[in-house]
């Protein structure tokens, strides 16, 4: 069994009228199969309402499947007795940095998770130091989160999860409310944790630029996984991506248009540098 193993996972939201009768059913996650191995960097792409966040909340046991199964590190997320263990294994970082920081001092916030799972005091301090150092926020440990930038707040939130020593971190649109610098900062930290600490990362986003360094990309639409593969495989399907209302990066789009009009450029250009190289190679020929 894979580290994260979803089989035919379904989640339905019920719309209710004022008396509480069910008016309609919305299928947010529709028979999804998903396998993630430990140590991988996975991205889930999709526009708003594609079901990607709902899927993510299952991995952290915040939601229970309506149908199908999901195992995280061999534990069934549908079993309420496993919830704490699952949440410890797979930590989650949310979109709004302000709404997930509980304490008024950075270090106290990072210590919140370990406190909840009953870690002894001395060890909490070791974990807080380790977590804050691994996201590069150690020197801000006594600061108030209100005085930090969005990217820094999000790094504190990641440290808060790291302090629980999870095997996996789910980042649910961690950059949606950040400026370009903050976005780069957060994505860089995610990659560092993946490479240096071996943490499995599941990045949920609608920015295609952010998935470039992933091992595997899943594209979701209307609750279904509609496309998956390496970033290059996914990026080469420009028309399909646009059909799913994803903003294809400029370089990829330009490369695609040039290729279509007959220039010998390979498909699946990931960024500007690759496009430059491909164009230079083109000119040489």
């Amino acid at each position, binding site marked *: 069994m894979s580290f994260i193993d979803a089989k035919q996972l379904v989640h339905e939201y019920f719309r209710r009228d004022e008396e509480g009768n069910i008016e309609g059913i919305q299928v947010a996650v529709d028979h999804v199969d998903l396998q993630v191995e430990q140590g991988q960097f996975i991205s889930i792409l999709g526009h708003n309402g594609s079901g990607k966040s709902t899927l993510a909340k299952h991995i952290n046991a915040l939601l229970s499947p309506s149908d199908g199964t999901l195992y995280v590190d061999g534990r069934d997320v549908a079993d309420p007795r496993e919830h704490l263990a699952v949440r410890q294994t797979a930590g989650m970082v949310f979109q709004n940095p302000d709404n997930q920081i509980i304490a008024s001092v950075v270090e106290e916030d990072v210590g919140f998770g370990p406190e909840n799972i*009953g870690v002894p005091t001395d060890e909490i301090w070791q974990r807080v130091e380790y977590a804050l150092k691994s996201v590069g926020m150690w020197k801000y440990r006594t600061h108030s989160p209100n005085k930090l930038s969005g990217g820094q707040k999000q790094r504190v939130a990641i440290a808060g999860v790291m302090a629980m020593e999870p095997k996996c971190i789910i980042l649910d649109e961690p950059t949606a409310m950040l400026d370009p610098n903050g976005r780069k900062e957060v994505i860089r930290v995610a990659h560092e944790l993946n490479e240096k600490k071996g943490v499995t990362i599941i990045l949920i986003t609608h920015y295609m630029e952010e998935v470039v360094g992933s091992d595997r990309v899943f594209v979701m639409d209307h609750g279904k996984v509609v496309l998956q593969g390496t970033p290059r495989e996914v990026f080469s399907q420009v028309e399909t991506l646009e059909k799913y209302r994803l903003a294809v990066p400029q370089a990829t789009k330009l490369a695609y248009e040039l290729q279509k009009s007959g220039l010998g450029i390979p498909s699946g250009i990931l960024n500007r540098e690759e496009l430059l190289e491909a164009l230079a190679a083109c000119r040489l020929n």
Partner: protein
Amino acid sequence: MLRDITLGQYYPAASAVHDMDPRTKLFGTLIYIIALFLFNNVIGWLVVTAFLVLAIRSCKVPFSYMVKGLKAIVMLLLIAAAFNLFLTSGTTVFAIGPLKVSDIGLRNAGLMTIRMIYLIVGTSIMTLTTTPNQLTDGLEQSLKFLNRIHVPVHEIAMMMSIALRFIPILIEETDKIMKAQMARGADFESGGIVKRAKAMVPLLVPLFVSAFRRAGDLALAMEARCYHGGEGRTKMKPLQYHGVDRISYIIILAFLILVIVSRVVYHPLLQLIGV
């Protein structure tokens, strides 16, 4: 105006007051409030003032920071003082038209104003030098005995600390909504009280909506980090009394005794020196 509220904002500094155990500070604040309503003469006032000055000097928070909190209650202070001034019966000192100011009224108004100002400044020292989490821990520890009569002490303490943490965020948000509404022609400043109260509605509705959304998000984030109530929880910063707390307790108790003594001995003392 909204940014002037300092209540519940932590001011980091390295001082003896910051190092104190939150239980000591809570106890000290409680005694201080009791003392504020106990003193009724000059000697008592001097003792209370000395205690307040000692606290202000040793906490290393800029004085201007504490006074900022007063601006918000200026109106309340004035109204309360006016009521005391004009509506207390006694020997008339002077009169403005039909309004008579009595000697007792003057005294009451003065006492009340001093008490209110001291109350705000004194309690803000506690909130400025204690992080909300420490405060919560302190309350939780001191009120633990209530658990026996099924009061959810931990939950209440947690709610309090979260409320304190969100004060600056919600203030910022109010500012933002206010500006957004002003940009679309809303007027918060002119008109009578009724009109101004009505003008607050388009401010409060979006504020409440967003507060509820934040609460939902926060609950989810707490749950994702394994929060499941106070059971089996350990502390990152467990409460421990140190040398500074022992000294503080002695000072606080001495202070209380002094205030009580000042109240008891004032009149005999006056008689003794024949005034």
